[in-house]
């Protein structure tokens, strides 16, 4: 997943960024609201948003984003634990709310859950034809036979699964999987898609000519 982390605390921000990267995600880190402008137009699977930031309220930023039609899943990270705060956070457009201190493992699980919900799948396992994918354990099976995927292959598959039935352009897929590294390797996505088709069958990832890729296209 490609995640935008918005957190001003250096210790927590760097810890979460590194934890998420070790976990195989692409993470961009903004230390204040003003830095988010640099990511305008960039696709993200989720925002990890702190409430209190040096240059404003994360909650107000989120409300404004929602008003502009941004539906990217948001997990609020905050030190505010009162019920009224949690309700305010959720009512302002957050998909979930986690109170500091928290275990980063729990945070990742919550991010996965809100992304799955946004993609229309409550469960962790998704079946597409002969392929079954477990989004939590990051395992894939072809005709019930487990198939090993590399981290990047998994990232491509996950990005497409989280946009099930939707056409994802190559540029968007590159950004989601590689982040800003995509500028350095222009054919990396084709390589990973090709590899996925070899391991999980040609039918899984459909190429929509001139538009991009899709998993779970119209039957």
């Amino acid at each position: 997943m490609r995640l935008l982390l918005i957190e001003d605390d250096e210790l927590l921000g760097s810890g979460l960024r590194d934890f998420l990267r070790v976990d195989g995600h692409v993470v961009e880190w903004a230390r204040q609201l003003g830095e988010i402008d640099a990511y305008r137009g960039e696709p993200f699977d989720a925002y990890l948003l702190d409430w209190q930031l040096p240059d404003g309220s994360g909650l107000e930023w989120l409300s404004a984003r929602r008003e502009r039609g941004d539906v990217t899943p948001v997990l609020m990270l905050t030190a505010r634990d009162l019920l009224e705060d949690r309700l305010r956070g959720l009512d302002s457009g957050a998909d979930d709310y986690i109170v500091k201190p928290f275990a980063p493992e729990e945070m990742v699980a919550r991010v996965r859950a809100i992304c799955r919900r946004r993609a229309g799948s409550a469960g962790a396992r998704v079946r597409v034809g002969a392929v079954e994918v477990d989004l939590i354990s990051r395992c894939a099976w072809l005709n019930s036979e487990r198939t090993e995927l590399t981290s990047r292959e998994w990232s491509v598959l996950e990005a497409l699964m989280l946009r099930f039935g939707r056409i994802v352009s190559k540029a968007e897929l590159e950004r989601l999987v590689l982040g800003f590294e995509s500028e350095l390797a222009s054919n990396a996505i084709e390589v990973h898609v090709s590899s996925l088709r070899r391991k999980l069958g040609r039918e899984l990832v459909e190429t929509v000519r001139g538009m991009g890729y899709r998993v779970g296209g119209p039957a």
Partner: protein
Amino acid sequence: MRLQPSASIGGRLIRSLVLWSVIWCAALGGALWMIVQEEVAELLDDSLQSAAEGLIGPLVQSRTEHVDPPVPPLASSTSGRFVWQLVSHQGPAHVVSSARSAPVSPLHDIPKPGFSNVPGWRVYGQATAQDGQMVYVAQTTEERVEAATEIALAALLVGAPMTLFAVLWLRSRVHRELQPLRDLSQRLARYDPMQPGATLGTAEREELRPVHAAIDALAGRLTRRLADERAFTSHAAHALRTPLAGIDAQLAVALREANAATRPRLQRVRTAAERLQRVVVALLAMFRSGAEVQRSEINVAALAARLPVEGLVIEAEGTTPLVADADLITAAVLNLMDNAQRHGARTVTFSTPGANVLQVHDDGPGVDSARRRELQAAIDAQDYDGRTGLGLMLADLVARAHGGGLSLPEQASGFAAELNLGSR
């Protein structure tokens, strides 16, 4: 003088009023009796004198004309009340003539004009025109006392109902005048100074106006203080929670990147950091000023499943749902579990032995009866400092915040803490 806590202003006022009414009535009655005695005696004396003056003429005339003793002119109106004697003091005193009911012997042996008392009689004497003769008109003392008593009784018959009426009226008046105090208590029970613009309202009596003003001022000070403390707690929460989360995130990354030799050491550090987190979170939850207990239904088995503590098996057997503040209960239970772990327990069992009661039992070595009683006494007295650990103190504060308390029931083995979470 120190008042009993249950002393009632109304009761005390009524008792005082009744006591003073009785004293006042007794004093008034005494004064009335003395006045009646005086005035009645004076009136009767006047009558006695008038009777004597009216009698003397006919008596002297009858004696001059040597006729039979006269029928006294006032006899018909005064018969039964007055008697008379015409007494000659020429030589030994002797009765010349007298009324039929008069004493046989002279009322006075020597001439005695004016008012005088002889045993059983009040006498008025007046000299006649004839030398040595006196007319005495007398009335029995018994009759005079009877007249005075009749008047006093009549006064009492009128005064007693008036006094009773006055007592009842005063009682009702006291009750009515104390009503604003009762209304004030009800207003205070509904008064929430944390609500914007909350005031106690207009005082119903002039004397209560300063009380209302003082309560409103106190509420204002408390509200400002709570707002300050809430702001401080919020800042403190942010200042503590964020670095703790950062430490945990850094340790989680380090654990993933560490080699096999370093990993156990890092894991111990992370476990200690998690314990620190639990304590800080519990303290922040407990001392967030002004925050009320937010009750919701808690499934104990689900709560137990959400509380992983390294090295502890957690069981929840046949529990019923609790209605309590989930954050506070979690904080209390986590610290009890920490205690259990530090004292060598392997299993912690949650049960609900009563309505809205949560028991946390561990299979550790427990404490002996004397120590258990000592801990319970410290908890009951809320004298935690140096007598109980943080876990029991927090559990007790959480239970008290719910309107209940913490007890440490005797166990055959292990240690148990029971949180009574008050009524639902």
